[in-house]
């Protein structure tokens, strides 16, 4: 049966998404900086 989406549930999911988004962004920056300073 279809059910409505509780707003609190939606907000909880979006907050989790923001946290994971920042984490992935930090990974990107870390790889970029490693790449930038790589030397033979």
């Amino acid at each position, binding site marked *: *049966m*279809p*059910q*409505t*989406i*509780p*707003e*609190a549930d*939606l907000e909880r*999911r*979006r907050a*989790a*998404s*923001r946290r*994971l*988004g920042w984490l*992935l*962004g930090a*990974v*990107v*920056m870390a*790889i*970029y*900086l*490693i*790449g*930038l300073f*790589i*030397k*033979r």
Partner: protein
Amino acid sequence: MSTLTHPADQLPHDHHPSGLLRWLTTTNHKDIGTMYMTFALIMFFVGGLMILAVRAELFQPGLQLMRPEFFNQLIGVHALVMIFAALMPAATGFANWMIPLMIGAPDMALPRLNNWGFWLLPPAAILLTLPFTLALFGIGDGAIATGWTFYAPLSVQGGMGVDFAILAVHILGISSIMGSINIIVTIFNMRAPGMTMMKLPLFCWGWLITAFLLIATLPVLAGAVTMLLTDRHFGTHFFDAAGGGDPILFQHLFWFFGHPEVYILLLPVWGLMPHVLSTFSRKPTYGYKAQVYSFIAIGLLSVIVWAHHFFTAGLPVPALIYFMFSTMAISLPLAVLFFCWIATMWKGAMTFETPMLFAVGFIVLFGIAGLTGLVLADVAADAQYHHSYFVVAHFHYALFAGGIMGVMTGVYYWLPKWTGHMYSEKLGKLHFWLTVLSFNLTFIPQFFLGLAGMPRRIPDYALQFAEFNAISTVGAFILGFSQLLFAWNIWSCVRGGPKVDSRVWEGAEGLEWELSSPPPHHSWETQPVIK
């Protein structure tokens, strides 16, 4: 606790602006998906016009239409536009439109990031093409002329077009990373109750692996081109042998991104293929789990095979052997995918509407890309074929027949869902046959040219190559102009046409077909439950 129980048109945040402001400020996944697809289509024609000029120059030996420097600029910007501004945005457009519909989510998890990710694209496209215009007014010496690979030391010595391209690639990269982050968090956090990861539609799985590949490899490209920028303007010597640097290091860094990029362009298409094949064979997808594990295996293998792009640069023999066998290993999960696609059709009640024609065409032509790729993966054979037209033909079978024809498959499959109208089947089928025939007319001769020793990236060539080049140019012009049918068919379908039901295709399965065609402004007001 309040709940989202209002009808879509009564929601407070539904009072979105109209006109241009709507498109500038929208956070709706369908609007943003439409913008990505429209942008991709425009840039597809921009990149296509560039290469038609190139093919016109190559119609016969000698220099007829342009200086060699301008020829070099056209081939480089053609590739950058087609890869970063046409194929990748098209795939992201699919993701925006379809992932929320397929997983039962009301929208992407981070809608404002989504808007920002798109609106970075137009300035980047302007940066890529602006040096052509500036050169007309005597400013600078035109666009980047190194080919899309930016190889040092040529790129260290190049004109200001290189700086424009470096900046454009940074911006395009940031846009793709934003899109990838949004797709990963949406798939992880926004799925409807009951949709476990192993019930996720294969299109979403394909995009999930793509997004992780982008996050792992785009920062390396960004690092490499930043180092290139500092070599050009700030006195560093990362890639300058005279200063103790190493030009081959640039090739390693570039292809650490560049090879996964091939799979970044193809995995979304491999993900949508099973949906189309299953629909028009009226059978469930064969080997769901095998396809998921193959996507993961290809994703992992794609980041450990990069040096096969420069076997001839003088790598040590153990490295050559390692990169040869690891490259060939990719053919195993890819063969699993081919087997599953064919097994899905096996003994099905098949019909050949336009999306199915493109899907079958994709399997045959992309198969040629795979087989010729195996030839190039062989170190001994590659010494002969490297930097020849054989390579050009191979990667166009991969990226046009594999990538762009895959995108066309998806557009024809989902366009009625997006617009609520059916496109013209007659025009669609004509577009398919013209595309397939002219594509082969363009690129089969290039295999022979490569085998005969014609190098790529040259505006003039020996007389012995004249006939095949003439045939290739005729094919390219038919291919280019037949894409106008595609654009016209889409435009006509957006403007009107026979109305379609929610389940557009008789054999279609999946959540996206439960919603009306076109879907409501807010997708999944009431969340579906997956059994």
